[in-house]
């Protein structure tokens, strides 16, 4: 496939052909991943919870997502009479499209990528915020107080967690020497998760908040806000928001894979297989968290972002920058253990500090 695409690249009119192929591929990839992720989530969380999960529709319940889609499509599409109709219609699309835009910059395997932006990291951090605006608008448009609270939480969360996320990406850019995702993957002879464990922790937590997953699912918060931002949605518009939620999870897994797990690189298997395997692994981690952890309160989530993650991200940025300026040729055998040690120490110290602060605050 690789060589074939490269050969396309040399032929006449190749740009639009490649554009078309990649566009179709990305939509197909996201959609099929979403269906598989929904199935995986329901089955895996069921196993975490000592039950079976959906197993009636098709083998192993594989067609459950399709059955749900059919059900949702045939539902009545209700728009509340006091809703802002324009926003109500457009918000799900505003939320969904950016996830596809991010996927356009992800290298699935060597050279198999829609666009190799030289400012890829910047593009991703910018576009991922648009998705949050879509969710905010969908919360506001429905004229429901629950969704309004959810929408406000979404914006608070976006503002807070975007900063540590971008900072951890900045240290990544310093280490890899490029903002292009292809270059970042190419620079990872050793995956970044080993080179920058602290940055990985910060990025992981921040991306969980970005994609509204437990313990940061405050936007949905089903036990508090019934369904949060999408309370008033039904029918296909709800399906689109549901799709957004999962395609954000797909994007989150893809970003973790690309930035920290070495992207498509790996021995034996073809690149795209490695990519998918790493994506599923990071999604499994997200599921594990979801089935174990309670939800944070909104102020605790803000505390974590500003008092916990931001200093850690700054420390990470500082250490990586120092290393790049003063010891650019330091052997991995020295730098990796030292940095892992530093990360663990910093995290433990900082966690202890925060915990101490909390105790004196409470009792």
């Amino acid at each position, binding site marked *: 496939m690789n060589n074939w695409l490269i050969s396309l690249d040399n032929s006449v009119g190749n740009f639009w052909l490649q554009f078309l192929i990649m566009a179709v591929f990305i939509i197909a990839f996201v959609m099929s991943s979403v269906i598989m992720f929904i199935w995986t989530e329901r089955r895996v969380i069921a196993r975490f919870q000592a039950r079976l999960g959906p197993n009636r529709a098709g083998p192993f319940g594989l067609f459950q997502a399709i059955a749900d889609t059919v059900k949702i499509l045939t539902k009545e599409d209700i728009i509340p009479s006091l809703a802002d109709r324009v926003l109500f219609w457009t918000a799900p699309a505003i939320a969904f499209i950016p996830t596809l835009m991010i996927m356009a910059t992800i290298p699935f395997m060597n050279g198999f990528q829609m666009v190799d932006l030289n400012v890829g990291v910047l593009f991703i951090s910018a576009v991922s915020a648009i998705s949050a605006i879509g969710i905010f608008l969908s919360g506001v448009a429905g004229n429901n107080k629950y969704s309004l609270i959810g929408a406000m939480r979404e914006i608070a969360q976006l503002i807070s967690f975007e900063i540590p996320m971008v900072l951890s990406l900045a240290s990544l850019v310093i280490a890899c020497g490029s903002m292009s995702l292809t270059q970042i993957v190419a620079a990872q002879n050793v995956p970044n998760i080993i080179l920058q464990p602290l940055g990985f922790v910060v990025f992981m937590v921040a991306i969980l908040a970005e994609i509204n997953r437990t313990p940061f699912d405050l936007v949905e918060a089903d036990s508090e806000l019934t369904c949060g931002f999408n309370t008033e949605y039904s029918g296909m518009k709800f399906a689109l928001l549901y799709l957004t939620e999962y395609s954000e999870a797909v994007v989150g897994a893809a970003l973790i894979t690309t930035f920290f797990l070495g992207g498509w690189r790996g021995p034996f298997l073809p690149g795209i297989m490695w990519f998918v395997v790493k994506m599923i692994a990071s999604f499994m981690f997200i599921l594990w968290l979801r089935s174990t952890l309670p*939800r944070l309160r909104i102020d*605790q989530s803000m505390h974590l972002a500003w008092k916990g993650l931001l200093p850690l991200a700054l420390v990470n940025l500082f250490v990586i920058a120092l290393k790049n300026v003063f010891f650019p040729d330091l052997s991995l055998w020295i730098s990796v253990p030292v940095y892992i040690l530093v990360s663990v120490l910093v995290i433990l110290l900082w966690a202890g500090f925060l915990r101490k602060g909390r105790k004196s605050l409470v009792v």
Partner: protein
Amino acid sequence: MTLATEQFILNIGPLHPSTHGVFRMRVTMDGETIQDVEPVFGYLHRGLEKLCESHTYKQNIPITDRLDYVSAINNNWPYVMAVEKLAEIQVPLRAEYLRVIMGELQRIASHLLAVGSLMNDMGVFYTAFMYMFREREKIIDLLEMVTGQRLLYNYMRFGGVSMDFPAEFIPALKRFLNIMPSYLDEYDSMMADNEILLSRTKGIGILTPEMAVNSSASGPLLRGSGVKWDLRKDAPYSVYDRFDFDIPTGNNGDCYDRYRVRMEEMRQSIRIINQAIEQLPSGKEKVMVPLRIRPPKGETYSQIEAPRGILGCYIVSDGSTKPYRCHFRAPAFINLTLLQELLIGQKLADAIIIFGSIDLSMGEVDR
């Protein structure tokens, strides 16, 4: 610079995932902070107390099942105790032991549901809930073995209980009691030291002992505040004075303490059941009483320690086959009066947890 903010009213319930039934709160909010709470009751009102007046004494037993439908056996108890007191019916010793064993099993089942749904309110996506339901299912199987029912057991009778234990019950119960502590440890390993859980529950919804006593709160809510008051120890009814068990109490009166008290009470219930099986005397499970008993004129009150607190039953008899008045002191209803004091000034997310830690069942509140 201060922004002009506007308060708004949020209706939580009656159909809301975390109102444990059909409770409704009209909450005045300032952003995420609660300024005022107005509880609205009555969505599950079935007129049970009035219904009792038009049924004979025996027909009322299944009605008491419907009070607090997650601890049905404990609801029969104060009613039959009151009628027995009124009609001077002697209960055989074996029946008292059967009542204790079944009542404590029901208490474990009820606490499992309470803690599980508290975890749900906290946002653990049904994991703790499903694990606790796994064990609750085992208890319900045991109860079904004796009574034939799975939710509303209709177990107690005047002068005893409806059924003696079948032969296979005691071995099955012993098997369950052997594994249950390890399951409780499993819950603790999942929840007790979870950092997020601690930060969500510690210091949240603090109920001072004075406040608890003044509002006549009871059950785990009261004991979580550090007041050591349990009718099983302090005013022993049935055969509770024959067992050796502890009353767990909390220190701070916050949601975490209430949760810990419930977890510890389950362990104590296991202790009680173990002792009860050892001491279980032989004999009849009930004495014969006439179908239509006519207690002499008078009134009486009896109370037990139900999973949610002190459950009392007040009966006035006019000498006929039907009670003249039958009133229940529902613990969840009285605990709920604290809601306003606990909730005002808290965040919305905390309010849900505090509400969950009170652990009410609407069947009992609305009656």
